[in-house]
């Protein structure tokens, strides 16, 4: 039956990709592994944005705020409470959820461009808070976080171990989001994306669905932030700025909104261009990103609506 074949093919690919990722630190040098760790943490943020923009059809420019909130929480926990990576990740996720819940009810009252503008306003406001609040280091950010430890073990100094922790967490988030997209709740979100008035006519409260997915995406962004801090052991207001949110949205569009592994690939490519390629071309990274933006929109018109061709592999 076509369905069984498709599932087997998808799981095969998934296993191959995971083994490739797990083996990476054995083959690659510390800098490459550090870069891949940052890509994984950024991909977790992008998964949150994909859940919001790809699955539920709500384009957002404010998820960096919750990503930053998670990162700041992880560093504060690392500095003052415990260096246990699990605790930091859970704290980051929780703060991301709370921050999204506290600010989300304003945004979900609107849709389309006005929703986009509200998320932009939330993002910029939280960025200002981080940049001016002395308790979180104001514009210098928070540094000096001790290296993370797992289950009370020794501090994970070498890049490879940190990488494995971030990989494990990222895979967990990926599996969770996959489950969400295939669950009845995922179906409800797609319903809100396609035809909100019909959902109302069927007895749903679309605002509740939008608010719940906004909080969920905030939690995922918070987790991404915590993983970002686990690797960098440092956070600054720039981590929740407009640029990070725009790059996350771009990653979703490059990868094809609605699919899950597409945007993760998009995230890796976008970071590769910003952090590694930019230096070698005289600091004109944004020029390359701009050209990539335009190319994606023209050459891959279905990039955004790539949902449909994902029909057979429902990953």
């Amino acid at each position: 039956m076509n369905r069984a074949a498709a599932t087997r093919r998808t799981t095969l690919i998934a296993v191959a990709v995971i083994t490739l990722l797990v083996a990476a630190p054995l083959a690659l040098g510390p800098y490459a592994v550090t870069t891949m760790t940052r890509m994984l943490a950024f991909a977790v943020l992008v998964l949150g944005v994909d859940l919001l923009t790809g699955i539920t059809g709500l384009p957002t420019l404010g998820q960096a705020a919750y990503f930053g909130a998670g990162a700041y929480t992880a560093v504060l926990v690392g500095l003052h409470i415990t260096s246990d990576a699990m605790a930091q990740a859970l704290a980051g996720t929780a703060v991301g959820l709370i921050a999204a819940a506290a600010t989300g009810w304003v945004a979900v009252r609107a849709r389309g461009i006005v929703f986009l503008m509200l998320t932009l306003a939330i993002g910029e406001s939280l960025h200002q808070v981080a940049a001016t609040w002395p308790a979180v280091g104001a514009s210098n950010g928070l540094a000096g976080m001790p290296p993370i430890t797992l289950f009370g073990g020794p501090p994970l100094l070498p890049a490879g171990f940190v990488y494995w922790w971030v990989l494990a967490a990222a895979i967990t988030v990926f599996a969770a989001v996959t489950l969400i997209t295939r669950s009845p709740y995922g179906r409800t979100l797609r319903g809100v994306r396609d035809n909100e008035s019909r959902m109302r006519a069927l007895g749903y409260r679309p605002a509740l669905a939008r608010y719940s997915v906004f909080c969920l995406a905030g939690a995922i962004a918070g987790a991404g932030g915590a993983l970002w801090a686990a690797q960098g052991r440092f956070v600054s207001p720039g981590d929740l700025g407009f640029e990070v949110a725009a790059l996350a949205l771009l990653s979703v569009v490059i990868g094809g909104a609605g699919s899950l592994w597409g945007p993760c690939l998009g995230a890796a490519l976008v970071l590769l261009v910003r952090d590694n390629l930019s230096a070698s071309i005289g600091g004109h990274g944004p020029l390359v990103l701009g050209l990539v933006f335009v190319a994606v929109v023209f050459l891959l018109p279905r990039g955004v609506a790539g949902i449909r061709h994902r029909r057979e592999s429902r990953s």
Partner: protein
Amino acid sequence: MTPVLELRGLTHAYGSLRAVDGVDLSVLPGERHALIGPNGAGKSTLFATVAGTLPATGGSVLFDGQDITALSESERARRGLLRTYQHSSLFLNCSVLDNVALAVQRVDRVAYRFDRAARRFGRTETRARRHLESVGLIGRAADDAAALSHGERRQLEVAMVLASQPSLVMFDEPTAGMSAAETERFADLVERLPDDLTLLIVEHDLDVVFRLADRVTVLHLGRVLASGAPEQVRADNAVRSAYLGSARTDDLFNGGPR
């Protein structure tokens, strides 16, 4: 017995235009009630005001004896007052099965569950497939709603409404754009519906109306012109002139000078 649906002086005005002007109507449980009238009589506006898509500017709507005039559209749907759409309003980027399953999962209260894959919610899946079978779309379950023909979309619309376990279904011109065969299938489907289900159908195809309806109400310029058994309404002169618009109705029948 208390009527399932009762309208008391229901009004909806676009500014000074009173599209629905003080309509009184009652629909008894299990009744197949048809609402007919020439174009622009206010049928769709009345429909939307009862369903809650449009707010009433006057009068009240009672459902199972309770006043629901102030309730939102989704609240009325949750109480069992469901409607279909004249221009079918579906989830085009979702599969046909998903379209129906969305209705079923809300009734089964699993719409916000994300602990297990949708496939493994057995009861919801089977009931969704059963509704698809009843409208003959089970073969298209995996296709996208956008890939359906106009007639098939109308049938999917019906399946979605029935899947929500309604106590009152409001059909908005269900056979518009359907082929003769599809209209026949729709009429059979309505006749097979359980007797405790109450129907309010807005329809132009008078053959379908007089085949299905227990009672007929004629709407003209936002007001009820006549209401009663199908034969009685068919014979009513006021209805004929309102419908046919000419003073001397016999001209129409023997091809008078044009």
